[in-house]
């Protein structure tokens, strides 16, 4: 039987506020356990939550960027359950009325096809703390630094049909929240993670199969691996006549498999109800307009503009708009050059390669955009050739100074003086009478040999066009 995979993702994006969603404690990562939890985060008797307004703007920005409806009135609700890292015995979340809902995002898949994925809703909530099961012989430690960290939970429609689509969707959301500046996207630190709801059904059937939920996937690769494993597991069960159980599972990257965590049958009844400590969240048109006016250019708009404005291919435009930092870098370089494609080739080629090799983000590049522009200007004004420019680039990367300094220090300036080049060309021809003979008797391929000899004699500095022109004339005799 042919099977179709159905996937919906719940992405948790940690909002990039300095303080927590309901308290003034800092959200900075990596501090000593329990040093960043105030009385509100600890759920002390008598304390009350106060909403951080920054998170509302961030949720609205996300909603606008995904064509969501911004709820004029949404409600914080309590999700009640007992766990030691949940200080109040309930998590403040949103349940029936989320802050934004009913939106969509367009994906560009690897084969260039486009697919629109529905976004059911995105709601605001607080994160719980962390239970530490190691290092406490027979006991567990609790770190509440993370308790109260603001999260935006983004729930997709079950529109994804493969692991690849799921990864493409997750990457698109990852790119978007970083563009919007509402999440740092750091997956190692847990700032961006997801739960995947996965089911399979025979191709052609309308009803969904029973789903399993894979919790807490914190890398694109794990999402892909977990889905691939899970789909195979479910298909195996169904093909051998079994029944998929609705349950929560965990992905174990070491063994590359998913394992049951708890079944829904014994799951908590969360007893959601509106939190009486918080007023309904009311968002007026003025705030929405204000956030809209401050929205940055979004990935898709940027891609389209790069194609239209710089004449780039769709592929290049996509690569150069991966992140705002890359796009800004590119635009700074391209802005100072007539040849926009030259800028694209260097940013995507030499620079990306060097960054990749060094494991650096573009924001940490030893060559900033101005330096790169300085280098490419020298190609454009024919001070150096493209080939020599690679040597200059390496020297700049190694910290030898800007392009002009390196060119001067190393004497790499291109020879464009026709007289000097002609002298070299004449010498080269004179030194190779046999090759000249063969060339003149029709062996055109030897033209390259003469170019090589001239370049060799000039240390690569002769202007290639000039060399071509002179060789053509002088070889002809």
């Amino acid at each position, binding site marked *: 039987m042919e099977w179709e995979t159905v996937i919906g993702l719940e992405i948790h994006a940690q909002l990039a506020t300095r303080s927590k969603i309901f308290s003034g404690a800092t959200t900075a990562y990596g501090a000593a356990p329990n040093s960043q939890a105030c009385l509100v985060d600890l759920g002390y*008797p008598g304390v009350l939550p106060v909403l951080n307004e920054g998170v509302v703007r961030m949720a609205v920005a996300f909603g606008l960027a995904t064509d969501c409806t911004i709820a004029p009135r949404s409600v914080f609700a309590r999700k009640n359950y*007992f766990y*030691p890292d949940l200080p109040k*015995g*309930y998590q403040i979340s949103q349940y029936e009325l989320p802050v934004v809902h009913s939106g969509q995002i367009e994906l560009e898949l690897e084969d260039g096809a486009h697919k629109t994925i529905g976004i059911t809703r995105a709601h605001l909530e607080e994160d719980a703390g962390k239970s530490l099961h190691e290092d406490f012989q027979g006991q567990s430690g609790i770190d509440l630094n993370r308790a109260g960290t603001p999260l935006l939970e983004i729930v997709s429609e079950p529109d994804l049909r493969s692991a690849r689509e799921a990864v493409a969707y997750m990457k698109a959301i990852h790119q978007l929240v970083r563009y919007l500046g509402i999440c740092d996207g750091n997956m190692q630190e847990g700032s961006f993670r997801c739960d995947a709801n996965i089911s399979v059904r025979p191709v052609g059937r309308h009803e969904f199969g029973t789903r399993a939920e894979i919790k807490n996937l914190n890398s694109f690769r794990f999402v892909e691996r977990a889905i691939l494993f899970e789909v195979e597991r479910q298909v195996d069960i169904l093909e051998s006549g079994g029944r998929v159980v609705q349950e929560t599972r965990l992905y174990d990257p070491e063994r590359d498999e998913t394992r049951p965590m708890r079944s829904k049958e014994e799951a908590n009844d969360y007893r959601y109800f509106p939190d009486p400590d*918080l*007023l309904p969240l009311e968002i007026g048109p003025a705030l929405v307009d204000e956030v809209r006016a401050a929205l940055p250019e979004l990935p898709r708009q940027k891609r389209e503009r790069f194609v239209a404005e710089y004449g780039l291919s769709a592929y290049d435009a996509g690569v150069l708009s991966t992140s705002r930092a890359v796009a800004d870098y590119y635009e700074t370089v391209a802005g100072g050059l007539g040849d926009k494609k030259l800028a694209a080739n260097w940013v995507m080629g030499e620079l990306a390669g060097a960054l990749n090799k060094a494991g650096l983000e573009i924001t940490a590049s030893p060559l900033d955009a101005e330096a790169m522009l300085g280098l490419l200007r020298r190609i454009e004004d024919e001070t150096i050739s493209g080939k020599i420019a690679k040597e200059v680039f390496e020297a700049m990367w190694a910290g030898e100074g800007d392009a002009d300094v390196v060119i001067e220090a190393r004497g790499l300036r291109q020879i464009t003086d026709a007289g000097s080049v002609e002298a070299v060309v004449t010498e080269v021809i004179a030194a190779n009478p046999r090759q000249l003979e063969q060339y003149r008797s029709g062996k055109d391929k030897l033209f390259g040999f003469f170019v090589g000899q001239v370049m060799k004699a000039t240390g690569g500095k002769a202007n290639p066009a000039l060399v071509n022109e002179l060789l053509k004339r002088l070889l002809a005799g």
Partner: protein
Amino acid sequence: MHGMTLAGIARALREREFSSEELVRHLLERIGRLDSELNAFITVTGEAALDAAREADARLADGGGGLTGVPIAHKDIFCTAGVKTSCGSRMLDNFVSPYDATVVERLREAGTIMLGKTNMDEFAMGSSNETSFYGPVRNPWDTQRVPGGSSGGSAAAVAARLVPAATGTDTGGSIRQPAALAGITGIKPTYGRVSRYGMIAFASSLDQAGVLTQTAEDAALLLTAMSGHDPRDSTSVDAPVPDYAAGLGESLEGLTVGVVEEFMDEGLDPANAAAIEASLKVLEGLGAKVRRISLPNIGLSVPTYYVVAPAECSSNLSRFDGIRFGYRAQSPRDLEDLYKRSRGEGFGAEVKRRIMTGTYVLSAGYYDAYYLKAQRVRQLIAADFRQAFESVDVIVGPTSPTPAFELGAKVDDPVTMYLNDIYTIGVNLAGLPGLSAPCGFVDGLPVGLQIVGRAFDEGRILNVAHRFQQETDWHARAPGGAFA
């Protein structure tokens, strides 16, 4: 000194008739001598109070005014930095708060001195002060009887003149009912008027802080100091706070007083009803017009309340899990055992009953039938009040169906106990301000007159009570015998 009102004490301190230290010593001596009879205090902070009194005397010598040096007590539901804050529960018997509630902070900034923390029903759940882990409080008018609850310790302490005033909280009548049963004045302001920050939550949408005093004037002085917006409480309202005391004394000429028919029926003790009718005559004598009104849905208040309040309490009390503070069971086997025994041993029977009720009404499959329906009825009750206030300025009636009952009389019958709050609960559900003032005696026991106002119309109900108290002396009567 101890018989004086808070306003009188403040004046006497300003005029240096006696020092704050003398007064505090005198009251601490009375507490030490008499409180074993009443059990009104859980904690007495004598040393700190004397230190504060000496500082206050220095400020008074420099011309310090207002409430400087005036002693008060706080219900043990308010967090007080460095002082045990038990909420009347074994669960918090070992809890020393690291911070002050906004109410505590504001009243201290106004110059008052805390003498101690008063006894209360456990987590404010009760109407007789018999659910306290620290034992019942006794009514100074008859120590075989309850003082009402849950602010029973505050009520008994003020009635016995151990302290001129005390804070309280009122979720369903917990200030007004004990004020009535103890023969004193108590006001629950509009929901949102006073910050709930640092007040241990019972039912967040109903809880409101207020005061228990001898007179409406005293209540006005304290309420002015403790009210106002608090950025730490999202439900506190950002509206200007009038000087309530300055507004007292206005004529009642032209005031329309509504009397709720549903409250004057056979459920009300006839002698109590007679005291209310006599009080209405006093108000008429002051120029008010009395009009009979109906609140058609008010009969649903008690069942509505006993869905909403337990629902919120079941969630609010989840934080008491034995992990970070409060009572923890000895040598738990595992996490579940730690939770079950810490909560099982730390909470008393009434608190557990309400947590179970609340958990039930919020459960999947029951939420719509109970919680959601109760919220709808709550809206109807609030609408009844709004409509009534289109034709009347204040609503007046009984605070409690009977005077103080005997200790133990109702402990085994929660429903009868809950009906004690039949006249007060609707006011909480509608979020309105309500006050109880002494209006007579039945068999030697005080009864109260409840005065309810429009939202944020505390000034008016305080003025009605004040004018009433200028014409009557019920509020000036104090228990005799040992407490004289």
